[in-house]
Structure formats: structure tokens, C-alpha cells
């Protein structure tokens, strides 16, 4: 075997590139040949020195922040607002979704998602801000053709932030806004309709739909699907009588 071929083979062994049979043959040669053993030891020693002194470096925080921002699902509100309100919506994604929203098949869902995005983007997710359902309920009832139950879900980890009126198909619809961790969850109450139940997503938002004897409900959030399901379960528990 030429020197060069021998060196390449030693290098492949070092780099873990030999298959089992060739590795075995190499190890047998290694045991037989002091020259080969010395060569291999030199290669190993060099690797150790390189890895000891040229290790990975941590990316600077500002770089990490800039790169993460490129794909953020949820840039936060300005600080002052963040304390008061749930943060967590990607502005870029929301804008993209806003324009894409009109093209979807279900105009009701598209309008509700647009309402969610608009509310979150504006930094004013609610028209009436109150954690007291006795404040929110009459406010919505005065502005929409049917009232909302506005259940209190604070003990389930979803405090009420307030309510707003969304416009769907040119009609006012009462929408409750809750907070789940640092995300907004909105629940709109619609006249009961047979179509559309279960989970879906639109523009990256999780949507869950269900109905009871009188109404259909649509919950929208950028929270994880599992957590939205937990929210819906708590909401349904609280509103079933």
C-alpha cells in the first residue's frame, strides 16, 4: 500500500468512514504495523488539539434575537401593553393572514380570524376590558342580538380579559377574549348552525368549533392546539347546564 493510500485509510478510520469489514482490517493492520500505529496516533493527537482549542462558539444574543425574529410566531406587544394584555401574535404572519383570509372557503371563519388578527395587532383585543363577567355580559348583550354567557374560567387558567364586537356577514357578533399563558383566545358566539364542527386551522391559527342547543361557538387562538382544546373543554363545562 502506498503511503498516500495508507494515510487516507488511516484518516477514514479516524473519521469513522470505514465500513465494519474495512475497520476490522484496519485495526488488524494497526496491531501489526508500528508505522501505521504511529501515523494513526499522530492523527488522533492532532484532532485532540484542534478540538481542545477550536471549539464551538455561542452565537451572540443579538444575533440570536435577530434570527429568531425572522420566524417569530409571536412578537410581543410594547412592554406597557404586554403587562396588561396577552402578547403573542406574529405581526408579519398576521398581516399575511389578513390578506389571505378573504380567499378561504368559509367566509365566517375568515372574518372571525381577521377580527382576531385585527384585535391583536391593534393592541386592543377588547372593546370592554374587564375580568368581571358581570361587566362584560351586559356590555355585549347591549350590542349584539343575543347575549353571551361569559363564563369565568380563571380557575382553569384562562382569565377573562373582556369582550368585543366582531362583524361577521355584516352582523354584530359577541366575542369574548380570554388569556391563556401569554396568548389571546377569542370565543365568538353565533346563531346555531349545523355546519362546521371540530378543529381546523386557518392562516396558522388554531380554531375549534362546537355548538349547544342555542348557539354555535368559534374559538380562535395562536396558542397550541392542545391548550386550545383544554380551554374549549373548560368553556363547555362552564356553559353546559
Amino acid at each position, binding site marked *: 500500500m502506498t503511503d498516500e493510500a495508507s494515510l487516507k485509510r488511516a*484518516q477514514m478510520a479516524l473519521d*469513522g468512514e470505514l465500513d465494519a469489514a474495512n475497520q476490522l482490517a484496519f485495526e488488524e493492520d494497526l496491531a501489526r504495523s508500528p508505522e501505521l500505529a504511529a501515523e494513526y496516533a499522530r492523527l488522533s493527537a492532532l484532532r485532540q488539539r484542534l478540538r481542545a*482549542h*477550536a*471549539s464551538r462558539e455561542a*452565537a*451572540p444574543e443579538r444575533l440570536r434575537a435577530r*434570527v429568531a425574529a*425572522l420566524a417569530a410566531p409571536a412578537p410581543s406587544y410594547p412592554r406597557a401593553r404586554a403587562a396588561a394584555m396577552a402578547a403573542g401574535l406574529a405581526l408579519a404572519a398576521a398581516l399575511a393572514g389578513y390578506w389571505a383570509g378573504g380567499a378561504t372557503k368559509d367566509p365566517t371563519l375568515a372574518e372571525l380570524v381577521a377580527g382576531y388578527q385585527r384585535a391583536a395587532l391593534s393592541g386592543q383585543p377588547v372593546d370592554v376590558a374587564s375580568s368581571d363577567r358581570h361587566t362584560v355580559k351586559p356590555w355585549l348583550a347591549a350590542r349584539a342580538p343575543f347575549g353571551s354567557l361569559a363564563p369565568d374560567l380563571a380557575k382553569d387558567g384562562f382569565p377573562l380579559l373582556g369582550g368585543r364586537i366582531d362583524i361577521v356577514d355584516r352582523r354584530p357578533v359577541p366575542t369574548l377574549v380570554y388569556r391563556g399563558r401569554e396568548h389571546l383566545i377569542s370565543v365568538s358566539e353565533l346563531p346555531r348552525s349545523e355546519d362546521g364542527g371540530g378543529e381546523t386551522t386557518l392562516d396558522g391559527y388554531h380554531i375549534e368549533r362546537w355548538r349547544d342547543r342555542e348557539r354555535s361557538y368559534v374559538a380562535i387562538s395562536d396558542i397550541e392546539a392542545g391548550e386550545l382544546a383544554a380551554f374549549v373543554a373548560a368553556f363547555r363545562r362552564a356553559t353546559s347546564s
Partner: protein
Amino acid sequence: MSGETAKRRFRDIVLPHLDDAYTLAKWLSGDGADAEDIVQEAAIRALAALEATTPLKPRAWWLAIVRNAALTFVARRRPNALAFVDDLDEIAAEGPDPEAALIARDEGERVRRAIASLPSPLRETLVLREIEELDYREIAAATEAPIGTVMSRLARARGALARMLGKSP
């Protein structure tokens, strides 16, 4: 504007390997501030590519993008700093400049300077192997070179480093 799917892939693929990307960019450009620009540029390219791609080997794929962004950056910033493959034999024949490595007393500094003094095709191959720990196939794909070339570059890089660094102190 990026879709949510691309962003999700980006968060899974790119963000966990940001340190690797920064390290590679710094070795290829020789400068921390340049490395930040390179990684950011690479990230923008990666996000755009992820609209249509789900890479099979995400980390190697991402590092290949960083490597290409670094080459573009270095070529634009310092046209003379880049050794093209055609020039490689010439440069290697002259031998790497051992001076910088010799004057450094600190072992770590010597090792780093020795790597930095390698011509860029040898340096990138060595860094992808020893620091980023890619395998030959991944390096071949990232550097757009045949496997045989990867192996000979590695051998030459290691030979040059061994000569520069000599025995361990």
C-alpha cells in the same frame, strides 16, 4: 412574506443550530462581526428555501447555506482573501504561512492561527469535519466537491497543521 410552515421548519431546523452556524461563519470569514452578518443573510436564504423544501439532513443543509453565504460575503468584502480551487495547488505548494502560528505562545492561540492560515478550501473542509463534525458525504454536498477531493483536502489540511504546530508542548 413567509408562510407559517416555513417559519415552523425554520424554528425546528435553523434556531437549534445557530451556534454551529456562527462558529462556521466566523472560521470562514475570520471575523465575529462579519460572521453575524453572514448568519443573518444565511438565515434569510434558509427561510425562503424552506417555503419549498424539507431537507433530509437539516443541520448539514443549514450549514451548507451558511458556508455559501460566507463565500459570497468574503468574495464581496475581500476579493483577494478567497482562494479558488484552481489556485489551490499553487497556494498549497507555497505552504501555509507558519509565522503567525509560531509567534503565538499560547497553545490555543497557535492552534487557532494555524487553522486560520489554511487556504480557504482546506480550512472549510477541516472546520466542517473537526468542529462541525459533518461526515464526508455532507461535506462533499456542502462544499460542492467530490468525496475524493474532500478526503485529499482533509489530508492536506491535517498535514499542514501538523507541520505548523509540531509536537504538543
